[in-house]
């Protein structure tokens, strides 16, 4: 039982660390803000959630202490991480940061123009 629990804990924590390393590589390698935001908000959230689940399992299965606060943290990160990425990339688009030059599809641009025209800006 202890071996099984240890395998589970090691699996979750290593997957989490792997995803965070992937996030860091993505932040360095990707060309513009939007692809970087995509890398950072998705895989970093998943990585931290996996590490938290590993910690939760360690305290539950090995130490015998059920800690619901960690589960609440997982839920909180799951809700707020992607929303934070969304808000940051949206505000940088409105602030006028151009996407990578290889981008072929831009649906938000015409929509922003329409909103500006409706509210009489410019």
């Amino acid at each position, binding site marked *: 039982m202890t071996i099984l629990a240890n395998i589970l804990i090691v699996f979750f924590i290593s997957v989490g660390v792997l995803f965070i390393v992937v996030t860091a590589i993505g932040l360095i390698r990707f060309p513009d803000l939007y692809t970087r935001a995509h890398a950072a908000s998705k895989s970093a959230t998943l990585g931290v959630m996996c590490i938290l689940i590993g910690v939760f399992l360690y305290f539950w299965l090995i130490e015998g202490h059920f800690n619901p*606060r960690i589960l*609440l943290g997982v*839920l*909180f990160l799951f*809700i*707020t991480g992607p*929303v934070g990425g*969304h*808000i940051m990339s*949206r505000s940088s688009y*409105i602030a006028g940061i151009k996407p990578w030059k290889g981008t072929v599809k831009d649906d938000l641009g015409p929509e922003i123009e329409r*909103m*500006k025209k409706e*509210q009489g*800006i410019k």
Partner: protein
Amino acid sequence: MKTNDMIIQFTAKIVFFIIFFFAIHIFLAGHYTPGGGFVGGLLASSAIVLLVLAFDIKTVRTVIPVNYTTLIGIGLLLALATAAFPMFKGDPFFTHYFDYFTLPLIGKTSLHTAMLFDTGVFLVVVGVTMTIIQTIGEDE
């Protein structure tokens, strides 16, 4: 420019309750585990700040109709009353009392007057933080 803020507003509505209940948990757990009035108050005020960020100050003021300056007064008064109460019984200033009670649903609990003092700290921290943020945010 005014844009559509639906995602952040809906998230703020849900996350507000998570943070607020966690603040109350931290506040109640302060006697035996890390936490207490100060951290709980900061967490509660950060939940209100999240609402202020997602909506605006006027909306939040109608949803939570609390005068934060009065809240500071109530908190200080509560702390002072808890500290001064033993003097009327002939004990030194700031003596705390505790006893075990059997409450319905919860069972045997130890109730301590330090809790009342902590409530005062909680209210003062919420009041001070929200007063600072509202005063800066309203400055036009």
